[in-house]
């Protein structure tokens, strides 16, 4: 595979549009001082982009619009379910972005983007003008995509695929469950946020059950035929929770066609499955602002240029993180953090009249099978004429066979990764 990365070929019309649009600001840009960047969404993607834009050019005016007062991370929310972390442990404030980097923080919800006059509209009625906009809204749940699963159903059968109250609700249900019950986790088809997430969740719930309700079981009903780090997870389950976790593939009856939330029952081709607790992880799409602004295609995800992360549908607007098609990269916090730095550099360059540099991107997803049992998948990526591709013969998963000490070491590094990415994104 050719690893062509030169942006002058790839960036094509996007960059040209960008530079044209900024033609009338040319004198100010030449001094490297002008430019307003607005970022929508202060997650691993948006927060990192806002911070790095200011690091790359402290003269830029960078405003971050975020709906929620604090960031409850999905990473480590499975450990909250397992009882080894609390919600407080995974809740972070964004004030460091203002204090350390001079990012202007605006709490509010963006409800519209006018790409013509380059303004973001907030629910409060306020408008924010921009020269370059970055949109990083994460995912929204496609309520109604599976019959019976709407907002009300989520209060009975939590998805917990956005961390916060949903995580707390699922944890309370696990605590209230009698010993001997079955916890059902329903996992969606690709693509979805955090491919190893449902299986780490099964592991952490099994950890809680093993230590508190040892006669209970976990049943994973999967829409897929295989899943991320499958061999490592299944090997780990055998070692740590023998007989406790059962996985059913889509063709073997794992595909859920309808949910009855009141009765905690899921309909599959092979009959109904009733759980003492049901965690239904539904199909997803880009956060609704991306859809409202015309950044997403008819499947609900945003096509972007793999070099600058500029939208292929709306010029002057960049999109990163879970909301996009990112080629070989998964929807992960690490991927969002990596894309953010590329998009920030591209925006800073474009505001100064320079085309984006050739990118190098990275992903790492650690998962805990048990508190002392970590596994990982990692990858380095570059842009090619066919989109974002993994560098051949690099990356990959932890070894299939490894001493307990190695798994323990990876559990320690899971913690180091978390501290690292939270600081790199928010502090």
């Amino acid at each position, binding site marked *: 595979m050719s*690893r*062509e990365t030169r942006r002058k070929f790839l960036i094509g019309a996007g960059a040209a549009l960008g530079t044209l649009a900024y033609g009338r600001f040319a004198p100010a840009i030449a001094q490297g001082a002008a430019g307003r960047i607005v970022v929508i969404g202060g997650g691993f993607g948006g927060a990192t982009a806002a911070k790095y834009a200011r690091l790359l050019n402290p003269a830029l005016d960078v405003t971050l619009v975020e709906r929620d007062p604090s960031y409850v991370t999905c990473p480590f929310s499975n450990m909250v379910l397992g009882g080894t972390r609390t919600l407080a442990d995974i809740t972070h404030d964004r004030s460091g972005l203002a204090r350390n980097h001079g990012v202007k923080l605006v709490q509010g919800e963006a409800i519209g983007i006018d790409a013509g006059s380059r303004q973001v509209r907030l629910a409060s009625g306020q408008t924010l003008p921009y020269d370059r906009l970055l949109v990083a809204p994460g995912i929204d749940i496609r309520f109604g995509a599976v019959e019976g699963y709407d907002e009300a159903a989520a209060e009975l059968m939590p998805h917990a695929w956005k961390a916060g109250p949903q995580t707390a609700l699922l944890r309370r249900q696990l605590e209230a469950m009698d010993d001997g019950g079955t916890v059902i986790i329903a996992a969606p088809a690709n693509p979805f946020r955090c491919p190893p997430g449902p299986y780490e969740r099964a592991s952490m719930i099994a950890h809680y059950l093993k230590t508190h309700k040892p006669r209970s079981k976990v049943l994973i009903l999967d829409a897929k035929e295989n899943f991320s780090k499958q061999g490592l997870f299944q090997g780990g389950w055998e070692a740590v929770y023998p007989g406790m976790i059962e996985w059913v593939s889509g063709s073997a009856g794992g595909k859920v066609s309808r949910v009855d939330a009141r009765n905690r029952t899921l309909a599959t081709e092979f009959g109904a499955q009733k759980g003492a607790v049901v965690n239904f992880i539904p199909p997803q799409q880009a956060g609704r602002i991306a859809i409202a602004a015309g950044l997403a295609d008819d499947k609900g995800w945003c096509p972007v240029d793999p070099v600058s992360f500029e939208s292929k549908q709306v010029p002057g607007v960049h999109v990163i993180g879970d909301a996009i098609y990112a080629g070989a990269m998964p929807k992960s916090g690490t991927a969002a953090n990596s894309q953010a730095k590329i998009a920030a550099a591209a925006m800073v360059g474009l505001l100064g009249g320079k085309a984006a*540099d050739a990118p190098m991107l990275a992903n790492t997803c650690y998962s805990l099978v048990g508190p002392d049992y970590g596994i990982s998948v990692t990858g380095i990526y570059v842009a090619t*004429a066919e989109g974002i591709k993994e560098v051949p013969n690099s990356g990959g998963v932890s070894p299939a066979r490894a001493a307990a000490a*190695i798994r323990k070491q990876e559990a320690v590094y899971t913690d180091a990764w978390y501290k690292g990415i939270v600081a790199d994104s928010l502090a």
Partner: protein
Amino acid sequence: MRTYIKPAALAASLVLSASGAAADAIKPETMARNCFTCHGTGGHPVNGLAPLAGIDAKAIETSMIDFRNDRRQATIMNRIARGLSEAEIAALAQYLSTLK
């Protein structure tokens, strides 16, 4: 809407390095920002991992080449180092050594 050059023309116009990368295409600071997720913004870690800022270039380069060739035990750095060519590693190490 977007004008991509045809892949054939692309390939012909490039000098490729061992790992298939355009030899001088990716700037070292672009590579380095991927390290900062774990090793700290600017190479100043907050989590007990090794710092990368201001470290002797030869030392980083040797570590990375050893990781790459499995001459040094690692849980993850061997897989990461294989994503960079030797030339990329040299340039990255040189850049990291200049960070304050």
